[in-house]
């Protein structure tokens, strides 16, 4: 029955950030972010460079742990559990919360092994047929299957940039995650590939929670249910620190922003 209860609270939000301050060494990168991210929806993070969008995104699956000087104050609750509690296994967190990066980064392996790697490292013990099925389903969900089904043995690098990025999405969904984080997934792609990725996101939205960082405001309006606008403000010591300026339904952020900074940003008056 506790599953039931978990599911109930998940219906409201999948992530809850409470007063998050993020530091790199003594440098404070982001201050006092509190927000709730809803499940089975697309949430976009927008804002100018250096405002901490990607930093926040990487906190959501503890990828920032790989950076030595990183430190987080505050809580990030995922289904009600604090991800930064000392007894949380970051490896398990990252399996449930997948990631797609800015530049397509397939492994230097075959297309098949790019997908199969995730299940294998997570202890997949099934037959060859079952793995074939995982690979096929993952590639189908990433709408790449028809383009690569005859060359699964080719290197992942043999694909075009847009195909590589869809391969990376297929790789992320192959481990059956709950959430897919995307860090500017289209910034290295041409407009046609970008549209394909966006269509793909809309389909993935049926089964996954998606959080996307984007510099492209049209992209946010096209795909996102909710949008968070991050901004920077000067600190007392002359540095800059990122903060969450406004978080609301996408149409509110772009049509009826409450904050002056948001209005300036979405109308292109300030970067």
């Amino acid at each position: 029955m506790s599953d039931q209860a978990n599911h109930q609270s998940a219906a409201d939000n999948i992530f809850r950030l409470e007063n998050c301050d993020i530091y790199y060494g003594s440098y404070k990168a982001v201050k006092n972010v509190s927000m709730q991210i809803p499940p089975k929806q697309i949430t976009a993070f927008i804002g100018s460079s250096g405002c901490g969008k990607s930093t926040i995104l990487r906190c959501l699956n503890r990828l920032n742990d790989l950076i030595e000087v990183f430190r987080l104050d505050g809580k990030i609750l995922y289904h009600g559990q604090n991800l930064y509690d000392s007894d949380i296994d970051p490896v398990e967190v990252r399996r449930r919360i997948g990631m797609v990066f800015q530049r397509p980064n397939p492994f230097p392996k075959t297309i098949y092994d790019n997908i199969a790697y995730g299940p294998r490292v997570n202890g997949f013990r099934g037959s060859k047929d079952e793995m074939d099925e995982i690979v096929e389903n993952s590639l189908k969900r990433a709408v790449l299957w028809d383009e690569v089904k005859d060359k699964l043995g080719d290197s992942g690098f043999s694909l075009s940039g847009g195909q590589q990025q869809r391969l990376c999405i297929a790789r992320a969904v192959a481990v059956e995650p709950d959430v897919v984080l995307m860090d500017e997934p289209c910034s290295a792609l041409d407009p046609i590939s970008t549209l394909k990725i966006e269509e793909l996101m809309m389909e993935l939205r049926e089964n996954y929670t998606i959080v996307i960082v984007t510099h492209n405001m049209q992209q946010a309006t096209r795909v996102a249910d909710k949008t968070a606008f991050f901004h920077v403000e000067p600190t007392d010591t002359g540095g800059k620190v990122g903060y969450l300026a406004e978080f609301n339904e996408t149409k509110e952020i772009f049509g009826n922003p409450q904050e002056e900074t948001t209005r300036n940003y979405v109308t292109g008056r300030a970067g």
Partner: protein
Amino acid sequence: MTTYTSSSTSNLGGQGLRKKSSRPRDIFNLVMTSLASLCMVITLVPLFLVIAFVVVQGIGAISPGLLTQLPPPPGLEGGGIGNALLGTIIVVAIATAISVPFGVMAAVYLSEFSKGNALAEWVRFFTNVLSGVPSIIAGVFVYALLVVTGITGYAAMAGGVALAVLMLPTIIRTTDEALNIIPQDIRWASVGVGASRYQTVLQIVLPAAVPSIITGVTLAIARAAGETAPLIFTALFSQFWPSGLFDPIATLSVLVYNFAIVPFKPQQELAWAGSLILVLLVLITSITARVVTHQKKF
């Protein structure tokens, strides 16, 4: 006109875009290019002379039995360097078997797990120092460690350990560099699908670095195969076929050293033939390294 030329289009009809080879900077250009080319040719001369000399002197001693027979006793004709060739292969194989696992694992620690701590910087520094240590020091070290103490005595094993000491710095450095070239992106991608640090290193990072690592190992082997000093008082020499890893063993480089200074003609010819085979071995391994490097993934 040697002064500044305006780039207005009115000049295009005249000298505007044409070459003016008499300008000082053009002459300077020509002189410097010629000078650099000349230096390049001069540095290649010794290389080709050495190879040509060894080939000319060694080719005469090439015979059907060269690679399969034992050297003749002093005063007799014929024979070959079969035992030394086999011995070199055995000793280098021992050295490779020791240095590759240790070297690669050490480099994995430096590159993937040390996180830039002070210890790693000191290890890197001393690795570089070790690579500059004269090879005879490695021989003396192993002589004191294994030969004098009687742990192995004069033995193929002692020779292999001495060569391993020489190979380690090359292998550590090239592997360290090879791992550092692998983009951070794919480590993050691997960790991002729920792999542990070691799964990432063993299944993603190391395989991607394999061509560069093989290049480093091959270069280390090529260097070790030609070393004489560390073998003289560790592996010693033998007139006979290798009899075991804990017995003295013949090697090509020591054979060249021993036979070149004796007064017997057949031995001197074998020394030249040995030199030729040694040069060919080093050349082949180096070329192999080059070919493998072309398969780099990053």
